[in-house]
């Protein structure tokens, strides 16, 4: 039976990261772009937690730094989503669109 190693998780994380990057770079809809950013953050988180397991295997069960990092990243994601969606609503109210490439004014 194939053993699941840290590397498996890293590959999965990389794949998700790439998907997120594609989403951010190609989509016009801001909401979906924000979701793609969440995808990227999650890919990073997956890596961090996988590293945390790897680190635990070497340094013992208290070496949970990766998990702590992941929690910080989640906090950050919450803040980012709140502010990002706030900006989105403000933008939508003024321009009546949620398309990324129509955000071309510094002031309105």
């Amino acid at each position, binding site marked *: 039976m194939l053993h*699941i190693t840290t590397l498996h998780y*890293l590959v999965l994380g990389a794949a998700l990261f790439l998907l997120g990057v594609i989403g951010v770079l190609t*989509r016009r809809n801001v909401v979906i772009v*924000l979701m793609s950013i969440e995808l990227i953050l999650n890919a990073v988180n997956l890596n961090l937690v996988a590293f945390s*397991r790897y680190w*635990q295997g070497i340094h013992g*069960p208290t070496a949970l730094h990766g998990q702590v990092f992941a929690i910080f990243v989640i906090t950050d994601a919450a803040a980012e989503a709140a502010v990002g*969606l706030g900006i989105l609503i403000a933008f939508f109210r003024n321009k009546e669109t949620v398309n990324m490439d129509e955000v071309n004014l510094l002031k309105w």
Partner: protein
Amino acid sequence: MNPPVATPFFFYLLAGTMIIGGILVITRKNAVHSAMALITTLLAQAALYLMLYAPFVAGVQIILYAGGIMVLFLFVIMLINLERNMKERQFNRQWLVGIATAAALGGLFIAVYTATTRGKVLFPEGRMSYVEADNTQKIAGLLFDRGMGQYMFAFEIASLLLLVAIIGAVVMAKKRI
């Protein structure tokens, strides 16, 4: 501690779910469908955290991401009507460049991987056992224990960040300030 059951099977199941979910997120026209796909991805990832002996992170992932952030997303999607948006072009003009960039990034990953793994095993499995029974307590220890709470300061900064985010969100979303 009993050994985990059928780990590869669950890993590939969850990984497949996540990848498919991720693809759906970036390809769906309807933002609500994207959000649903993202929720699926996030929940699958929470399950992967459980497999990685990180139950607390999994719990936080469920309660914060799936129960909090995604509800916020759905809320906003419902507030802004996307009917018109769905009839429009979904991808921007530089989509080809975007995909090329992402492909380049992927190529970079592969290159790094092949360059570093030549002749050695990356991330060998450690000898220590993984304990999840007091995972929460250990994380709490790292965050705010007197002896080894090395992330105390970062924790406080994070709370400050959240405060700023609250104010920012309110300021941004308020109709008339």
